[in-house]
């Protein structure tokens, strides 16, 4: 593990609002508009080549409501870090990373399914774990666990 790159990263990235170390992982917070640019630099300058994961955390009552959480890994430096951005309920939009990482395609689709986060630039936000015609976003805190869905008709 090479943590020197993380210090360098904190120093050089000027778009970052705040940094913190949480349980040994570097956490960076950026504004939604700056996200694709920041990730572009992380990939080209700091060799974070593996897009691990994207998900969201719903904090109802807070403004902005959603926290979109990314994890990246560098196969060169063997370190991982977390990137966060916050989006509001009215406009849950962040830039998509599909042009930088192929793996973002499925994971952004899942996040869109579950939280309704819109990834601008992802051409394919079809439901992935859910189905066409599913109403609502099940991992939002205001979606009741026992909510019922309209039934899908049998195919002919």
């Amino acid at each position, binding site marked *: 593990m090479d943590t020197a790159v993380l210090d360098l990263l904190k120093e050089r990235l000027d778009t970052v609002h705040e940094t913190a170390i949480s*349980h040994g*992982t570097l956490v960076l917070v950026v504004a939604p508009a700056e996200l694709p640019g920041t990730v572009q630099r992380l990939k080209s300058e700091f060799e974070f080549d593996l897009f691990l994961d994207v998900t969201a955390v719903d904090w109802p009552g807070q403004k902005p409501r959603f926290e979109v959480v990314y994890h990246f890994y560098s196969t060169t430096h063997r370190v991982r870090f977390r990137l966060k951005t916050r989006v509001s309920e009215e406009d849950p939009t962040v830039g998509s990373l599909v042009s930088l990482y192929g793996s973002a395609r*499925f994971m952004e689709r*899942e996040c869109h399914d579950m939280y309704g986060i819109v990834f601008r630039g992802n051409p394919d936000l079809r439901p992935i774990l859910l189905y066409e*015609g599913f109403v609502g976003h*099940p*991992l939002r805190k205001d979606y009741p*666990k026992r909510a019922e869905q*309209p039934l*899908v008709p049998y195919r002919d």
Partner: protein
Amino acid sequence: MDAKLPNPVRSVFEQVERDGTVVVNIGPSHPATHGTIQIIVELDGEKVVRADAHCGYLHRGFEKECEAHTWHNLIPYVDRLNYCSALSNDFAYCAAVEELMGIELTPRCKYLRTLLAEYSRIADHLTCIAASLMEMGAMTAFLYLVMLRDFIYEHLAALTGARVTYTYGRIGGLACDLPPGWLARLDEILDQYEVFVGRVHGLMDRNRIFIDRTRDVGVISTAEAINWGFTGPILRSTGAPRDLRKDTPYLAYAELDFEVPVGIKGDNYDRYYVRMREMDESVHMIRQLVDLLPDGPINVDDRRCTFPEKRLVYTEIESLINHFKLVMEGPQVPAGEVYSAQEAPNGELGFYIVSTGEGTPYKVHVRSPSFVHMGGAHRLMEGYQLADIIPTFGSVNMIGGECDR
């Protein structure tokens, strides 16, 4: 019934791209795909032009359900993610919670978890190889490998009480210690492993039919594998020695001697061979671990997560209250968030958990290797024959429970 509802699956392509091609649907319930998944392909003759994989048929709201249970109660659920190697899931989940609680495992637990994680890796790889060989008609190899897997299942049943979904990990430890004679039987099974896996090597490695079906099929380069998020045996089959057990050692891996086998081309044959070699390394690790296994307690002495002894629950009030609180309210995990990843048999299995300081998780998210691999699976299928989809899909080892959650 409302007829206006759309078809539950919408393919990314409805029309053929050029003349003479045809769109064919495979699955979601196809006898040759060992997993509930639908693949829609555009064929030019027998050649796959485009492929579109649809998952989600086994979606059961795992992450939503997690938010309604205590931290302990999730352990049976995480078992059912990758049901071929349930112990790896248990340990990865428990490691994430332990990191948030700041718990240091006891030495015996650390070594035992490492041993069992490697044992699970053997069972998982055996399943994967056996199934994909059988789909290519290699029935003898299938039976040899599945027999070995059954030895392991029975052996783990003697330890945990269940054959497939063990619920054996606990936050801060394990459910119980090894029963008497368990390690002796382990030794016998590892000897059997060598005999029968040796036979499978003899049957398959230089088998003309097998090589023709797998060599140069489903090829992927390292750069592309990383771009599509592939980890585990698929990434290693391309020649990149990336393994979390070596790169960011956890449990007892730092003290073990093992190699990270890699492939040459990243095709189906390499994925088969990398898995075979990884099992050998796991056996090598298990033998070291049996010698290293220290004595001592398996659970940490921490009242926040470890249940008091039953004898004490019935005789003293403090233990009774402790037991009651742990069952009714769950372990109080400090507020915070953590992403903890381990090298599961299929690749990087990560748990991202958020706690608000209560007995129930605020959020549990699984970075499951199978789901990510399905995102890039079309890359392995496009440009090859329709019949190659089956061995390619087998070599990716998609596990529906983990992919669809």
